[in-house]
């Protein structure tokens, strides 16, 4: 890739960046609350986002900038296997439809802001609350770092070099998130999502017409994999189980993350969430088509230094400069929305489930909002430093582990909606087993997400996160059976809080 700066592309980029920055600061006045000095306002936008705002916000926050870069890159590198993101982002929605309205109702009735609040309110256990909340924070940190990587790729594609542009972009983001809270990404998401839709639609219509149609795109990819001797446009028999277990495990984990839960809790009602479960798959269609850009990279015969360059190089090669600039702006802005929501989600967890519990139980609502604002800043600065100072692979590995970790909070967060059978010590033991056992397996497999299991001489690779979840549930059931139910201090706390 050349380092030449295309002025028209740069001008488009600067225009959109200035636009969303203005929107970010203006957002504090949007649907103005009496005061932003309350975590329900700063951190959840007042819990009144309707169907469309929620659609843009959750869509903008779940389908991240890194997705736009990484999914086509994976498909470019290995083919069909990279498509697991498609079944994953389909089967996640029936789950959202069934579970999330119940969680929203519990949150609204009892004023929960975070997953930690839900767990404390349900089981009255400080220990379980701390486990769930800290899992949320550490799983989110590398995810924010990945958004920076996505943004870096887009900025580099514009020909801008050095670290200043990304530092500047992130500081601006930190400032308006500080002042506007969740309203900022909610408002910016409109711009970001519409831009991404335009970019992907243009790509899937224009690119195949320049490359001889979809048949030609698929044959070119097939030929490239054949020549490489690796990958293919269909799954190899050994990839079947990894494909479905990654899809299922990712779907179960997806809405356990603080940023997705924040989008859910911020919506105006259970029905808003149900309608979104019907409407959000529109983004999945987009993602599926976007993934095909990986194959178009083969059809266009791109020479790449890194797989992550497939999307930017494709746009540079096949589109005029200004439109390439538009596409890179969409990706860079696409990083701002999830990064903001993630830092808000992590800040909410820290404030509600750590600061308020262990540091200052007497904190006022205004004090909570202040702590969260500062934390959101620190979280972003931390992610920025991590990207500037540590190898990129470090963030990728941590992100992989983060998915496994966050999945271990599912039993504590979700089971209580359906049954009162499980008690806190059992869920805590399950969480600990899944978390440590799963991390140990990933570590022993050389930081790969798949673990090989042998049955009767047949070896199957399974997504380690699912194995860890199975261990988690088994341990929780066994401990619940073995440890006698007695009135513990935690139970008394729960009763006291309920009253």
């Amino acid at each position, binding site marked *: 890739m050349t380092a030449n700066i295309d002025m028209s592309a740069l001008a488009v980029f600067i225009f959109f960046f200035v636009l969303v920055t203005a929107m970010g600061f203006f957002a504090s006045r949007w649907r103005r609350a009496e005061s932003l000095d309350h975590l329900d306002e700063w951190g959840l936008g007042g819990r009144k986002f309707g169907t469309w705002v929620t659609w843009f916000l959750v869509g903008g926050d779940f389908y991240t900038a890194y997705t736009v870069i990484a999914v086509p890159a994976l498909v470019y590198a290995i083919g*069909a296997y990279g*498509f697991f993101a*498609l*079944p994953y982002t*389909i*089967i996640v*929605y*029936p789950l959202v*439809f*069934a579970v999330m309205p119940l969680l929203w109702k519990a949150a609204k009735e009892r004023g929960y802001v975070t997953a930690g609040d839900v767990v404390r309110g349900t089981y009255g256990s400080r220990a379980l609350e701390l486990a769930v909340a800290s899992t949320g924070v550490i799983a989110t940190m590398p995810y924010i770092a990945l958004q920076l990587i996505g943004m870096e790729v887009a900025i580099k594609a514009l020909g801008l070099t050095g670290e200043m542009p990304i530092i500047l972009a992130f500081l601006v983001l930190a400032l308006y998130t500080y002042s506007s809270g969740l309203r900022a990404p909610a408002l910016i998401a409109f711009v970001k999502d519409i831009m991404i839709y335009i970019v992907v639609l243009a790509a899937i219509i224009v690119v195949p017409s320049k490359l001889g*149609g*979809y*048949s*030609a*795109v*698929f044959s070119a990819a097939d030929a490239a994999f054949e020549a490489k001797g690796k990958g293919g*446009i*269909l*799954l190899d028999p050994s990839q*079947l189980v990894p*494909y*479905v277990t990654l*899809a*299922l495990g990712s779907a179960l984990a997806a809405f356990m993350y603080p940023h997705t839960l924040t989008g859910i809790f911020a919506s105006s*009602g*259970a*029905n808003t969430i*149900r*309608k979104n*479960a*019907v*409407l959000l*798959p*529109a983004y*999945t*269609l987009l993602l*599926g*088509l976007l993934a*095909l850009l990986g194959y178009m990279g083969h059809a266009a015969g791109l020479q790449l230094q890194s797989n992550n360059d497939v999307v930017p190089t494709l746009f540079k090669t096949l589109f005029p400069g200004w439109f390439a600039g538009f596409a890179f702006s969409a990706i860079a802005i696409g990083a701002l929305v999830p990064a903001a929501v993630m830092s808000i989600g992590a800040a909410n967890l820290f404030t509600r489930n750590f600061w308020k519990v262990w540091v200052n139980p007497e904190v006022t609502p205004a004090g909570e909002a202040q702590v969260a604002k500062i934390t959101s800043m620190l979280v972003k600065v931390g992610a920025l430093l991590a990207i500037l100072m540590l190898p990129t692979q470090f963030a990728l590995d941590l992100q992989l582990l983060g998915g496994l970790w966050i999945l271990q909070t599912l039993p504590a967060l979700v089971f209580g909606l359906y049954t009162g059978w499980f008690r806190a010590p059992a869920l805590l033991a399950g969480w600990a087993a899944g978390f440590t056992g799963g991390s140990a397996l990933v570590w022993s497999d050389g930081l790969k997400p798949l673990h090989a299991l042998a049955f009767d001489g047949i070896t199957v690779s399974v997504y380690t996160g699912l194995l860890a979840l199975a261990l988690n549930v088994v341990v929780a059931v066994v401990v619940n059976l073995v440890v006698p139910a007695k009135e513990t201090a935690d139970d008394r706390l729960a009763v006291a809080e309920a009253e």
Partner: protein
Amino acid sequence: MIRLLLLAPYIGLLWVPFYNFEEPKLFGFPFFYWYQLAWVPLTSLITYVVYRSVRHDG
């Protein structure tokens, strides 16, 4: 009972032998691709049908 329809996408997508082949193609897309893409609107539709059937409690 109608809620059980929500399980259909799991069955349709998590059993890969249903769709891991090239033919029949549609608009140049091998079956593997258009089958999975077709599940997107289908899942929306199923969820919508279930949505219509649940009690709307806010």
